[in-house]
Each structure stands twice: as structure tokens, then as C-alpha cells.
């Protein structure tokens, strides 16, 4: 079987298209590269969506944590503590068990004027359930980063905004928030990289891979188990993830440039990629 044929069969296997059966014997390098690459789609899906939605919740959490009101600050602090203080692996297991316990045929919401049946079955599937966990997890980690940045917004900036008569939402949107993002960006880039790394945990932690549609590491593990040779599939995953990491650094670097474009060039913070690993 030629490599083109393999590519057609397995390039979108992780999404359920193409050949149904995974290769069983005589594994070629081409098959391993194609299948593991096809699994990478899921890593990018989990990482990108969790990062996107998490960004907004993280901003809200950071602002809440900075609030003077006790009722707002305490929940934010607890949210951050619970999700940053416990392993993501345990969070996945816990969430999966909780989702499984939800009633199978949906929750009947009895509103006064109408009945709504909330479907819950989809939450036990990895594409939704794991995404929820990753979303909350990254919101907590980035919330802490944003909170730190929020605390270090220069006092002079706020005073200048006051002098211009800005207050409340306008001041936040035009002065505080952009400065907060600018200060937090290098740390947030690290968070993005390690969120993508964390997506490899999904199929090893309770969430079953339905019809063998898994992520990159799921397929790599499949090959390693079948061939009993870890020296080929795992370096392939490593190769793909190095590519993803470089892409993130490039993309976030562009945003960093834009956030800092008003600064004198020698003051611009450079992106420094430092390992701040596992959750």
C-alpha cells in the first residue's frame, strides 16, 4: 500500500472518516506518521477552544479576585485554588464520574411556562466533557496570571485615565485591560504551550476513546503497545508537538508585538519560554 493510499485512508481517521479498522500488523512509518498526525487534530481542537473560552473566564476571574467585595473575591480565590492545587488528571476522572452520574435521559427543567429537557449524554463524551475540564483548568491558571498582571498595572496609568474623566467600564476596557494583557502575555504564552501539552492526558483519564477516535498520544500508545517498540511512535508525537509549540510561540509572538507596539523598542519585553509544566 503506497503512502498516498495510507494518507487517504487514515488522514482523518480520528474524526471518523476513512478506513474503519486501524492497521494491525506490518506497521509502516507512513502509517504511524499519518495516524498520529490525524490524532493531533483533537489536541489542537481541545487546546484552541479551551484557550479561547478560558481567556474570557480568566479575565472575569482575575477581576473578581481583585475585587474589594468579599462575596465576589472568595469564590474566585477558591476556584483558582481548587483547579491549580489539584492534578488535572484527578480533575478529569472526577469530572467524568460526575458527568456519568447525571441522569441518562436528560434533566427535566420545569419552568413556569414551558418544559425543557436538557440533554446530558454528550457531556460524557470526550469532545465536550474533557473540553469543559480543560476550559475551567486553563481559566484558573490564566486567571492567576492575569490577576498578577492586574496588580502590577502602573498606578500612573490609572491616574491618567481618571484625569481624562474615564471611569468604570470605559477605563477598564481602554486602559486596564490592554495593560494587563501586555504584562501577562509572556506568562500566558507559557500557559498556552502547556495547555496544549495537557490535552494529551484526555484519553488516558477516564474519557473513553469512542470507536478508536483518539488524540495523537492515543495512537502513539496504540502503536507502541502493538509493536512493543517505543522508539518510533513517541518520537513522532514529540516531533508533532515541537511543531505545535513553535507555531504557538510564533502566533503569540505576533500578538505580543501588537500589544507592545506603542512602547519604546528597548523596553519591549521579549517572550521568554520557560517550562512551567504539568498541572
Amino acid at each position, binding site marked *: 500500500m503506497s503512502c498516498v493510499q495510507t494518507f487517504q485512508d487514515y488522514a482523518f481517521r480520528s474524526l471518523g472518516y476513512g478506513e474503519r479498522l486501524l492497521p494491525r500488523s506490518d506497521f509502516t512509518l507512513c502509517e504511524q506518521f499519518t495516524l498520529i498526525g490525524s490524532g493531533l487534530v483533537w489536541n489542537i481542537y481541545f487546546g484552541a477552544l479551551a484557550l479561547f473560552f478560558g481567556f474570557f473566564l480568566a479575565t472575569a476571574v482575575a477581576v473578581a479576585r481583585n475585587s474589594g467585595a468579599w462575596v465576589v473575591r472568595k469564590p474566585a480565590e477558591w476556584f483558582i485554588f481548587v483547579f491549580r492545587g489539584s492534578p488535572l488528571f484527578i480533575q478529569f476522572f*472526577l469530572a467524568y464520574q460526575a458527568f456519568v452520574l447525571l441522569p441518562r435521559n436528560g434533566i427535566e427543567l420545569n419552568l413556569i411556562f414551558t418544559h425543557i429537557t436538557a440533554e446530558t449524554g454528550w457531556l460524557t463524551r470526550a469532545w465536550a466533557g474533557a473540553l469543559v475540564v480543560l476550559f475551567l483548568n486553563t481559566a484558573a491558571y490564566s486567571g492567576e496570571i492575569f490577576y498578577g498582571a492586574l496588580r502590577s498595572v502602573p498606578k500612573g496609568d490609572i491616574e491618567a485615565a481618571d484625569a481624562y474623566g474615564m471611569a468604570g467600564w470605559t477605563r477598564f476596557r481602554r486602559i486596564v485591560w490592554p495593560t494587563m494583557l501586555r504584562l501577562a502575555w509572556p506568562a500566558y504564552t507559557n500557559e498556552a504551550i502547556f495547555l496544549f501539552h495537557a490535552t494529551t492526558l484526555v484519553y*488516558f483519564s477516564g474519557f473513553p476513546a469512542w470507536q478508536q477516535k483518539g488524540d495523537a498520544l492515543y495512537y502513539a500508545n496504540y502503536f507502541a503497545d502493538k509493536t512493543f517498540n517505543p522508539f518510533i511512535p513517541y518520537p513522532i508525537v514529540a516531533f508533532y508537538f515541537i511543531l505545535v509549540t513553535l507555531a504557538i510561540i510564533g502566533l503569540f509572538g505576533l500578538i505580543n508585538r501588537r500589544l507592545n507596539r506603542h512602547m519604546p523598542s528597548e523596553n519591549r519585553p521579549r517572550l521568554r519560554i520557560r517550562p512551567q509544566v504539568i498541572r
Partner: protein
Amino acid sequence: MFASCADPSTLEGLNWLACYLTSGKHMAFYQSFLVVLALLAITAPAALLFGFGGAMAARSRIWPLRMVGRAYTAMVRGIPDIVFFLFVPVAMDQGFEWLRHKVKCPDWTDPVRQGSDFVVCPAAKLPLSTSPQWAHETYGFALAVLAFAVVFGAFAANVLYGAMRAVPRAQIETAEAYGMTPRQSFWRVLVPQMWIYALPGLSNLWMILIKATPLLFLLGVQDIVYWARELGGSKTSIFAYPHPDWRLYYFLGLLIFYLMLTRVSEAVLSRLTARLSHGQATLAGEAQRKAAQ
């Protein structure tokens, strides 16, 4: 455990719960918490040792050694750690068996890799197929510790490399002015001074290490995750203590265990930082001096 637990089917309420929570399997579950703590206690110094070696290699004046050190510290940045946790134990296991195979069975002619099998001569198996169960378990645990040490050693190497560069250059120059050799100035001046710079990074690493311990489960060690799944799953009436699916509560217990572990570590580390900052020419040390006045 208790004498009244002899016949579980007659028990009710709190009595049932007391007997249930002290059954033999639960005792194994409680012991697995010790396994996690043992892993932490063994891995932390081992990773520090690996990290120290890595940082020294990355600073070496010999080019190949420096490249090895740099590659070791750089590899963890782009690659998910869980890949290492899956890769290192199997790779190490096969590496050890292959070496023993070469030494113990030199006249073995068959290739080691036969299709999808990895075949070494019986004398080279690790542990030997005749050895008792505990030897197999210990070997599995040792491989897991090695995997953790390799991965966290790379992180620690990053931290220590940075800390070594943070020691003021003037200190080394002074050492050189006193006529110390590079080796002497490294061990007598640089190493004693670098720890205060390394402490924030190392304490961060400790928190990360705590949160990585449930990955033991992936390495096949019977750790707390294994037992929580095992015990929590629904038990039909053929079991002594039938109950529905309680895995949620078991995992909630694990979550609380980890939250407590993080909380305690935070408190200990902040005390340690305060202790080490005492009398240092840093902002924290200065603040302590002002407060004492």
C-alpha cells in the same frame, strides 16, 4: 479489622461503614497513599541530582557535553511530559534487558526484535521470571521513579542553570583573584550561593511534582488512582460489601488529599523561603531586617 465485621451482610448504618472502610482492600488503598509519598520522597532528591548533572553539563567547556546538557534541558519545553512517562519506562526496561542479554548470552544468535516482539534470553529478563511478586512490583516502581527523575531532572536542570548564572559575576572573579581553580571556585563559591536563587523555581517544581504523582497510574503502579477506581466501581451482591458506583466520592477524596498536600507544601515552602532569606542582601531579607527593628 473489628471482630463485629465477621459477617458483613448483617451490618447496618455506621457499623457497616466502619467495617467497609477497614476492609483489607481499603487498607491497601491507604497504603497506596504511602506509595505516593514514597515516590515524592525518592524522586525529589533524585531529580535534583539529575538536574544538577544536567546544569553542570550545560555549563561545561567541552562542546559535546555542553550540547548534551543543553538538549536535555531543552527537550521538556516542546514535548508533553506524559510522552516521557510513557516512553522512558519501556525504553529503559528494554535497554537494561538488551545490555544484560549482550553480557549474559553472548552466543544467542536470534535477533532481539522479531516482528512485534522483544525477545531476550531467559537469563537476561528483568526481573527474572522466577523471582517473587514483590520483585516485579519493586522493579515497576523503580522504573517509574527513574522516569520521574529523568523528566523532573530536566526541569530542575533549567532552574539550577538559571540559578548558577544568577550568582553575581563579581563573586567568581573574587574567587579567581584568590587563585582558586575553576573547580574550586565552582564548588566553594558558586554552589553554596546559588540555592537562594534556585529556591523559587525549585518550590514551583515541587508543586508540579506533587501534581504529577497520579500519573503513576499510567505506569502500571497500583497507586491511589488505581485503588480509587477499583474500590469505587459498583459492587454487586456477590461482593461482601455491595454498593453502587461510588467512584465520584473516591475521586473527591483524592482531590481533597491533593489540595491538602498543596496547602501544606505552600506553608512549609513559605517558611523555608523566610528562613533562607534571613540575613540575605535581597528585598525579602531587607524587609525582615526592617521589621525586626
